[in-house]
């Protein structure tokens, strides 16, 4: 009796132990062997059966040529994004497949962190997508060094329409050691501003704040004087996500968000951490938080939790992009909660260092798209990817991925695009296919006509030109640790957990234990090589 029990236990133990061993090593073990599933495309995606003989005037000749051969080439594309419809409802996919003779399988990931992880695992396991988004320039460099990316320089001639669409200047952003490794999408215009509840201001008899001191007063009043009139002390003055909540406040002191590089008016290249005014900015933000009017959870607001607080009528000022507060669907939600709610944009408040609505990344792109080196061997597929890039850069393709199907989502009045009712209903996702970007201003003004004034307002605010998008990380510098350290210490400073007199020792510690000095020196060298700060 006793022995049998022992035996069972032993067997159970023996069975569990290896699982435990392998489970512990999951960090390394998982990425060996085959990929973690999901690679097989959706089998039901064959929408149009006959080969595209009706291929409309496509951008490059070769596209229609191979379309006639009747074989569909499967293209696997991954990027970040959301709201992609299922393949059978995806009219952009259908139109592209028809024009190019492809079977495009686009997969999008809502969270950037998730995407990075997925992408890394796929690349490590050799299960390459045919076209994929690269998170940033630093990662681009890493990929290039690992020999994962196809050098596009020899293919530039074939990418004529794409090159023309992007401009030579823009391609510098994805050039490493004189080789073009990816296609940079043109950057978006800036979207973010402070938004403020006009009806709350009116109720309390206040003016929109023009200086940071007025801002402080309004934040306090919003939190303490019951602007929503429900008799409860349940409102927040200012909300946002992470430290960027205070971007215009940093701007009012003439400094960028923590750890941004930019060129001052006198032509000097600086990092915001080393600016003397940074300490003043932190002191002011600490005062702002001390009033009790700032959302205590800004550091925990991930995703769009701050937007929710604004829509619910809980917060009075928010740092956010115009789409997330003024798009039709959100405007509706706001009205549903409170028909009298009125959000207006706020110009950056003035301070001792001027007025800037935060930093805007000059080296940034709104996406970098690369082709894996492995595709070099599959000439036919590679050609299709190049065709695709050219097509969405050409006239027809660009119109398609911007506005949808002509006759259904828009009509042409001469050169002017006239949206139909279906455009706002159905074409919300087409940007996912804008692999090479879009003519930003005209696109937005057409597609978001009701929001046109917000778009223009956000675009016209003064910004600091941040240069971080040009940078790559040197060997021996761990950006994850350093970023954490900076953010952590900044939070301590503004929440009064550590006195500002320790700022200099913070810098020292950053330089020594986080190896920040290496990064800083290297960054300065990189930027000077690009002609900044001379």
């Amino acid at each position, binding site marked *: 009796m006793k022995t049998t029990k022992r035996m069972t236990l*032993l067997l159970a133990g023996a*069975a569990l132990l290896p699982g435990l061993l*392998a489970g512990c090593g999951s*960090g390394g073990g998982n990425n060996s062997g085959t990929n973690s599933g999901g690679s097989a495309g959706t089998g039901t995606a064959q929408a149009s059966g006959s080969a595209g003989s009706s291929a409309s005037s496509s951008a490059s000749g070769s596209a229609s040529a191979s379309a006639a051969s009747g074989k569909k080439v499967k293209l696997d594309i991954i990027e970040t994004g959301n709201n992609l419809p299922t393949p059978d409802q995806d009219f952009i996919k259908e139109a592209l497949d028809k024009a190019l003779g492809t079977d495009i399988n686009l997969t999008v990931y809502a969270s950037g962190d998730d995407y990075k992880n997925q992408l890394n695992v796929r690349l490590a396991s050799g299960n390459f997508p045919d076209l994929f988004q690269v998170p940033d320039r630093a990662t681009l460099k890493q990929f290039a060094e*690992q*020999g994962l990316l196809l050098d596009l320089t020899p293919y530039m001639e074939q990418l004529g329409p794409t090159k023309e669409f992007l401009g030579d200047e823009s391609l510098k952003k994805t050039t490493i050691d004189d080789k073009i490794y990816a296609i940079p999408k043109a950057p978006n215009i800036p979207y973010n501003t402070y938004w403020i509840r006009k009806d709350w201001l009116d109720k309390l008899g206040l003016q929109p704040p023009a200086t940071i001191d007025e801002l402080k007063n309004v934040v306090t009043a919003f939190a303490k004087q019951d602007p929503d009139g429900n008799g409860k002390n349940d409102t927040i003055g200012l909300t946002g996500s992470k430290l960027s909540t205070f971007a215009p406040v940093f701007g009012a002191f003439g400094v960028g968000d923590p750890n941004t590089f930019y060129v001052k008016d006198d032509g000097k290249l600086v990092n915001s951490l080393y600016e003397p005014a940074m300490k003043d900015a932190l002191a002011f933000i600490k005062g702002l938080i001390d009033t009790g009017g700032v959302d205590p959870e800004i550091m925990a607001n991930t995703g769009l939790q701050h937007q929710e607080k604004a829509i619910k009528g809980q917060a009075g000022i928010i740092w956010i992009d115009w789409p997330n507060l003024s798009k039709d669907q959100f405007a509706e939600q706001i009205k549903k909660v409170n028909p009298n709610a009125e959000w207006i944009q706020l110009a950056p408040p003035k301070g001792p260092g001027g007025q800037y609505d935060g930093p805007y990344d000059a080296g940034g792109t709104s996406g970098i798209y690369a082709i894996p080196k492995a595709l070099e061997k599959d000439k036919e597929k590679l050609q299709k990817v190049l065709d695709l890039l050219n097509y969405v850069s050409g006239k027809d393709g660009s119109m398609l991925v911007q506005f949808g199907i002509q006759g259904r989502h828009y009509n042409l009045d001469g050169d002017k695009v006239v949206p139909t009712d279906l455009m706002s209903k159905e074409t919300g996702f087409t940007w996912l296919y804008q692999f090479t970007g879009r003519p930003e201003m005209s696109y937005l003004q057409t597609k978001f006509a009701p929001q046109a004034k917000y778009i223009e307002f956000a675009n016209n605010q003064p910004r600091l030109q941040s240069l971080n998008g040009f940078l790559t990380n040197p060997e021996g510098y*761990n950006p994850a640790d350093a970023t954490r350290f900076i953010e952590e210490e900044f939070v301590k400073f503004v929440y009064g957990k550590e006195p500002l007199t320790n700022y200099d020792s913070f810098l020292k510690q950053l330089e020594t234990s986080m190896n920040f000095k290496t990064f800083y020196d290297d960054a300065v060298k990189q930027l000077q090589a690009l002609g900044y700060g001379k």
Partner: protein
Amino acid sequence: MEMPIAAQPRAEQPRRLASFFGSAWRFRAFYVMLLPGLIYYVLFKYLPMYGVIIAFKDFNMSSGILHSAWAHPWNKHFLTFLHSPYFSQLLTNTVLISVYKLLFGMVPPIAMALLLNECRVKWFRSLIQTLTYMPHFLSWVIIYGILLALLSQSSGLVNQWIKDIGGETIPFLTSTSYFRSILVSSEIWQNLGWGAIIYLAAIAGIDPTLYEAARADGAGRLRMIWHVTLPGIRTVIIMLFILNLGHLLDAGFEQIYIMYNIQVYPVADILDTWVFRTGLQQLNFSLASAVGLFKAAIGLVLVLGSNRIARIWGEGIW
């Protein structure tokens, strides 16, 4: 069942082998049943282990596991990890959170199982059982959503009550003083019912004649729990404890990754979250597997060590 082999300590090699095959043949049905399990473990648990060699290499994605260059020095990635400015904090957090979960998480499921076992109203018992093990199937994202709705400082229900009665709001989710307690208690809540199942099964296996004998001796319910039920499941309790010890350095990546934010990093950042940020997101797969190997080694030592200690009391797994 007799065990002839154990009786002869210095048997000759061939005879031993022969008798092994003999008994294997005799119990062939059992061995066949064992086979699928063995194949599974070899295929999915042992073979992938060759991948740990990337902990000693500079893994390059285009060269693959076998052709990447060896790291120089061989322990380069281990050193990077050991010399990380956050190493001691990470280790402390991992061990503390794990130990809290292990200690505080052990008694509630046992108590739950005892209570359920003593409950004689059948429908009530099944109702409670179903309700308590439901949270096990909720993902951490959903649980965090619930916690946020309850405990958020700006919009949570609890803080709203505190405000209504004129108190100061409490930063449950963003303060270093509350965060670990929230982690541990939400984990206990999630696994209470699920953990009780295995104990209930063990209780069901106790010989009912023991209860009869106890009753005949005049034992009440509490006495029977103490002298019959608890000793009856002692082996299971110790086995689960030992197995859980092996996971001491897994403090629960998913839960923490979803719930933490920069303000609580000093008490919440664990090995796995660090590996995720530094290893997986920054393409340092070699570093990630070095840490994985480090964890596995410590887990193995803990399991072997605790089993040895348990054996002193005559209760080891093997």
